[in-house]
């Protein structure tokens, strides 16, 4: 089963690190990612650019509107997403609690992926009926 791990970090804390400290952190984290990859747990993962680069879209007064910045403003910002392949939630917890990023102050929110296959199948049937008319 797949779990989406949302990694949050405190930019102020990162800015306060020396280059050596930051490199050591990156080396440890990427090495652990490699370990996850080698054992088939790392289904996908991407780092995110800083929140200033984000743009948020929504519906307002009958049309699409947009604002600069992330949807939710929090002290910690979303720094990356990891799609984890694990047997169950406790396996996911176990794998992520060993991630060196946690030790460096990152926070992981682990979300089981939802199964939309039944809803999608029902939707397909509805759409097929519409086109058949």
């Amino acid at each position: 089963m797949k779990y989406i791990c949302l990694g949050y970090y405190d930019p102020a804390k990162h800015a306060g690190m020396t280059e050596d400290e930051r490199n050591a952190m990156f080396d440890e984290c990427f090495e652990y990612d490699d370990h996850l990859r080698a054992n088939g747990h790392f289904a996908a993962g991407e780092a995110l650019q800083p929140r200033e680069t984000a743009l948020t879209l929504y519906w307002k007064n009958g049309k699409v509107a947009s604002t600069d910045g992330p949807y939710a403003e929090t002290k910690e910002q979303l720094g990356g997403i990891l799609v984890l392949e694990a047997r169950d939630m406790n396996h996911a917890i176990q794998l992520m609690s060993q991630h060196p990023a946690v030790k460096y102050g990152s926070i992981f929110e682990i979300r089981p992926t939802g199964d939309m296959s039944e809803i999608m199948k029902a939707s397909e049937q509805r759409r097929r009926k519409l086109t058949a008319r």
Partner: protein
Amino acid sequence: MPPNAPEDLSRTIETLYRSESGRILATLVRLLGDLDLAEEAMHEAFAAALETWPHTGLPDKPRPWLISAGRFKAIDVMRRRGRIDAAQKDLALQLEARVNEAPQEEEMEDDRLRLIFTCCHPALPSEGQVALTLREVCGLTTEEIARAFLVTTATLAQRIVRAKAVIRDKAIPYQVPVSQELSARLGAVLQVVYLVFNAGYSAEATGAGLSREAIRLGRLLLDLLPEPEVAGLLGLMLLQESRRAARSSAEGELILLDRQDRSQWNRDQIAEGIALTESALRSRRFGAYTLQAAIAAVHAESSSAASTDWRQIKLLYDRLIQIQPSPVVELNRAVAIAMYEGPEQGLHLIDDLLAGEELANYPFAYSARADLCRRLGRLPEARASYEKALSLTRQEPERRFLSGRLEELK
């Protein structure tokens, strides 16, 4: 299709996971001395099988292959941690030195028993014991257990995390308790099995799965530790399970023992349950589960409530009260007495029990009282007692049942 086609192999590995992961995990826990590490190593071993077997073919003995792969994976983990923590490095070296000792078959059966006793250790909170046993011994996932107990995945995941933390912090050893301790510790294990079974008894939709799991666990335990009380508990569970089809209507309404269609009782489960109960009784070292099984067996052997040997049931309750005194058992005994001495006698006993504090909020005490009043033709009193019972229960099936009885009295 060639015998080792990848799809075939991944199905084989899935089947192996279901049948072997409990054994493999238990042995890895002993070899590695750490539940989390053993679990991780086992998952990596199965992942390695998925990767390797399509090239090499299925090994002759998959189980030792997986255990050995798990040990090597654990060494990898320890080496990785060893770069930060020197103690882990030493452990990795120790593991490496012993990696080629092959575990013996008998030893592996003991490993499962060790793991059961660890998961049911009295130092763990009761909810944690249940969750951990279902996950580590029965191989259920966090999500499956959460669904069965109607709690969120996150809540159940935390119970497991906390239980594991207790095992680690208190350094609970992986071992079967020695004989002086065994009977008390076995009591805790049997309680976990019976809790799982009862959760399956009351839950409407998810129940059957949990009860089956409890019976499976009971069989495994009897295999590993043939003690009379283990046979007694398995007998009790089978005898109760034999009535599953008869104890609710097609509409999901509760049907009590006296109104059940006994032709719907599962005869195979009854035969096995009675045989187990008799063997436990013959040992003369039985306990409360065996006595409850014996009571269930008397019901199972009767063709109707009227032809049941209630005197025998009352005698069994007398013995049960001696070893496990409880007001609920006394209530059941009073009901049995009412069945052969008459409702009047039963009513006296129930009123005495209700005068005490302990059953004052127990709905079934009032519904039993109501039933006896009804049989004596004291209808206003019967109605009042059903209403009192109704006010004390929030379980939907029970509420519908009590409302139905009230309806009959109008």
